[in-house]
C-alpha cells in the first residue's frame, strides 16, 4: 500500500534529529558547572586523585575530541562508561528501560480510559452542569503537581485503604501491574486534563459536522451516530496531540518515578544529571529522543490507518 510508503523512509529522518540531540546534550551537559571527578571524590579530593579520575574518563581531552570519541563509540554501538556506576552505559540503560516503558504506556492507557468517558460526558452536555463538573475535575488534575498528587494517592489508596503497594516496581508481571496503578493514575490525571479538553473540542466539532448530521438524517440514533461516526473521527487529533507530547510525558515520569520509587530511566537520568554522569545523561537523552521519534512514527502509522485521507 503506497500510503504506508513513509514507513520505509521515515526512519532516515531520525538521523538528523539524533545528531542534533547528541550535539546539544553534549554541549549542554558539559557546560553545567560541576566537576564529576570532584563529586565522585568528595572531601577526599586531592589534585592527583582528581587528575586520575579525569584521565580515566577522558575528561581532560578537548571537548570536540570527547565528542568525536562519543560518536565513534556510538558507531560501535557503545555509549561509554558511567562515571558513577563505573559500568557500561547501555547495559545500565537497558536495566532501567522496562519500568519507564510500562509507566508511559500505562499512563497513556489510563489517561485514555479517563479522557474518553469524561470528554464524552462533557461534549454531550455542552454548557450543562456535567460539562462544568468535568472541567473542574480535569483542571483539578492539571493544577495538581504530580509529586503532591502522588503522595495523596499513596496516603489514600495504599496507607488508608491498603489497595495498592506504596511504591516500587515488583518482580512478577502481576506484581508490576499492581505496582504501576497509582503512578499511572498520577500521570494520567494531569495528562487527561489536557486530552479531555482536546477531545471535548473535537467531539463538539464532529458532533456538529456534516457527516454526523447526515447520519442523523438517515435516522441513526444519537448513540450510534456518536459511537460510529463521531468518536472515531474525534480521536485522531487527540491521539496526535498525545504523540506530540510524548517527550514531555516521558520527562514527566521523572518526578513520578521519584515519588513512587520506580527504578526507571527518569531516576537514572536525574541522578546522572545531579552527579554529572555525562555519559549516562547523554545515553538517556538519546534514548528519550529515539523513543519520542518512534512514538510519533507509530502515531503516523496509526493516523494513516485510522484516517484514509491522510497521506504522508
Amino acid at each position, binding site marked *: 500500500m503506497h500510503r504506508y510508503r513513509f514507513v520505509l523512509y521515515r526512519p532516515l529522518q531520525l538521523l538528523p534529529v539524533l545528531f542534533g540531540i547528541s550535539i546539544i546534550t553534549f554541549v549542554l551537559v558539559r557546560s553545567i558547572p560541576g566537576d564529576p571527578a*570532584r563529586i565522585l*571524590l568528595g572531601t577526599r579530593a586531592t589534585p*592527583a586523585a582528581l587528575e586520575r579520575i579525569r584521565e580515566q574518563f577522558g575528561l581532560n581531552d578537548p571537548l570536540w575530541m570527547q565528542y568525536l570519541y562519543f560518536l565513534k563509540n556510538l558507531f560501535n554501538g557503545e555509549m561509554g562508561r558511567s562515571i558513577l*556506576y563505573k559500568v557500561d552505559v547501555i547495559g545500565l540503560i537497558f536495566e532501567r528501560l522496562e519500568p519507564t516503558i510500562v509507566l508511559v504506556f500505562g499512563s497513556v492507557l489510563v489517561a485514555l480510559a479517563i479522557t474518553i468517558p469524561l470528554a464524552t460526558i462533557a461534549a454531550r452536555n455542552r454548557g450543562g452542569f456535567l460539562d462544568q463538573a468535568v472541567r473542574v475535575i480535569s483542571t483539578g488534575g492539571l493544577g495538581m503537581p504530580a509529586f503532591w498528587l502522588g*503522595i495523596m494517592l499513596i496516603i489514600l489508596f495504599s496507607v488508608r485503604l*491498603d489497595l495498592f*503497594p506504596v511504591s516500587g516496581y515488583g518482580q512478577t508481571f502481576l*506484581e508490576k501491574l499492581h505496582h504501576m496503578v497509582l503512578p499511572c493514575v498520577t500521570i494520567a490525571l494531569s495528562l487527561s486534563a489536557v486530552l479531555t479538553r482536546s477531545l471535548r473540542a473535537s467531539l463538539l466539532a464532529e458532533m456538529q459536522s456534516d457527516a454526523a448530521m447526515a447520519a442523523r438524517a438517515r435516522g441513526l440514533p444519537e448513540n450510534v451516530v456518536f459511537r460510529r461516526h463521531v468518536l472515531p473521527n474525534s480521536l485522531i487529533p487527540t491521539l496526535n496531540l498525545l504523540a506530540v507530547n510524548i517527550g514531555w510525558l516521558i520527562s514527566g515520569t521523572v518526578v513520578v518515578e521519584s515519588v*513512587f520509587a520506580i*527504578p526507571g530511566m527518569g531516576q537514572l537520568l536525574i541522578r546522572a544529571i545531579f552527579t554529572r554522569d555525562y555519559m549516562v545523561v547523554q545515553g538517556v537523552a538519546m534514548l528519550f529522543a529515539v523513543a519520542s521519534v518512534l512514538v510519533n512514527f507509530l502515531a503516523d502509522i496509526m493516523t494513516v490507518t485510522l484516517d484514509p485521507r491522510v497521506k504522508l
Partner: protein
Amino acid sequence: MNRRFLKLAGATALAALTLSTSIAEAAGILTIGRREDSSTFDPIATAQNIDFWVFMNVYDVLVRVDKTGTKLEPGLAESWDISEDGLTYTMNLRDANFSDGSPITAEDVIYSLTRIRDSDRSLWSDSYKIIENMEAPDDKTVVITLSTQSAPFLSTLAMPGASIISKKGMEEMGAEDYASNPIASGAFTVKDWIRGDRVILEKNPEFWQADRVQLDGVEWISIPDDNTRMLNVQAGQIDAAIFVPFSRVQQLQADPELTVHLEPSTREDSLLINHDHEPLGKKEVRQAIDFAINKQEVVDAVTFGIGEVANSYVPKGALYYYADNLRRPHDPEKAKELLEEAGVSDLELNYLVKAGDEVDEQIAVLLQRQLSEAGITVNIEKVDASQQWDMLVDGQYDIAAAYWTNDILDPDQKTTFVLGNDANMNYMTRYDSPEVAQMVADARVEMDDSKREEMYVELQKQAKEDVNWIDLYYSPYINVSRKNVENFYQNPLGRFFLEDTVKN
C-alpha cells in the same frame, strides 16, 4: 459509557484487593528503605555513605569498630601486635572463608590493601600511602610496615574502603563484574542487585560468625521521596527505613506499630565561612557571626528539637570530644559591637545553598533572618548539590552550611580535613593557621593516649577561638523500624549491626 467505566473501576479495585495480600515479603528478609541506591560494590571506588553502609555487612575488614563507635574490636584479624616504634603491625588472621568457600589468606589481605593504595580506581590512595611494605610470613599472618608513625592507622584499617576482597575472584572476574557481584566475607552476600531499585542480600553461610546471623536476607530498597519511604514503613510494606526527616519523628513515634531509633552519630552540621573573602578573614567578624546565630532556634526549628547545639568540631560522644568547649551565646548586640570594632558595616554575605536539600534550605532561611537582626544582609544563592560542591571547592561563596560524618573512629581524619590544612583548604574554609596545622600533625603521630587527648582538647579550643567555621548542631541518625524488628542498630560510624537484627 458511564456504566462501563464503573465496571472497569470495580474490576481494577477487585484485582488490587486480591493482589495486595500476596505482596507480603518472605519472613526472614529484612527490607530497609533508603534514599538512594548503591552505586558500586567495589570498596575502593566510592566515598559515599550510601555504599559504605551496605559494605559493612557485606565485606569484612581486619579491624572493626564496636557498637558504641568508640573502640576497635577484632575483625578478620583475630589479634594484632604493634612494634615498639609504632611502624610495624603484625596482623594475625582468623580462619574465615569468602562467600565462594575459599579461605581468606594473607595474600588476599595484601592484595586488598595494595589495591586501595595503588589502584587508579581508588579514591582513598592518599590515606593508605603511609603503608610502606606488606609481607606474608605465612597464610595467616600479615606484617605491615608504615613509613611513619600513625596513631589513627588501626582506625584506618577499619574503614570500609579497606574491606578484604578475594584476589582470585577479582583477577578472574575483573573489577567491573566484581563491583556488581562481589565475593566477600561479611554477614551477607549480594544475591542480586537491581540497579536503581534494590540490593538484595542473603545470609552468608561462610561468614565466620554465621551463627550470630538471624536474618535470611536483607533488601536495601531505594525510595528517594522521604514521604513515600515513611509511608512504606507505616503501611508495613517495608520493615525499616533510614534517613527519617526530623519533621516526621514525633508523628512516627506516636505510631504504636513503629519504633523510631535516634542513634548517636558523628554527624555535625556547621556553617562554613570563606576566610579568603574579606572581611571574613578577620577573627572578630567570624566571632560576630557566631554571636548572631541562635543555634538553639536552629535546633528547634530545623531538627524539631531532636538535635543538640554543637560546641566543637569533634562530634559529641566521639573520641576526645571536649564537652566544656566555649559556647558563644546568641547575642546580636554583641555581634554588632564586634563588627563595629572590626570596622565592618553593612556586611553583605553570599549564602550558598544546596538546592533540593530540605535541611540546608531551612537553615538558610533561618540564618538569613537571624543575621539580619545583627545587621548582616544575607543573599541566598541556591544551586544544585554538585555545583555547590564545585563552588565551595573553588571558594565562590561567603558562607554555606555543610555537614560531616566520620568514616573512622579516630578524630585525626576529620581534624586533618578541617584544621590540618590538607589539600581541601580546611574543608573549603581557607582557614590558614600554621600553628594549628602543626598541632594536627603532631597529634597524628603521638602514640600516648592521654597526651593525645590533651592535644585534641587544645585543638578544639583553638578552633572555637578562631571560628574556623561555626558549629551549629549535632544530630542523631534517625531510623524507623516496625515493632517486630529487634536489634536494628546503627553505630556512630554508620554501621548497621544486621548480624544481630531479628525480624519476628
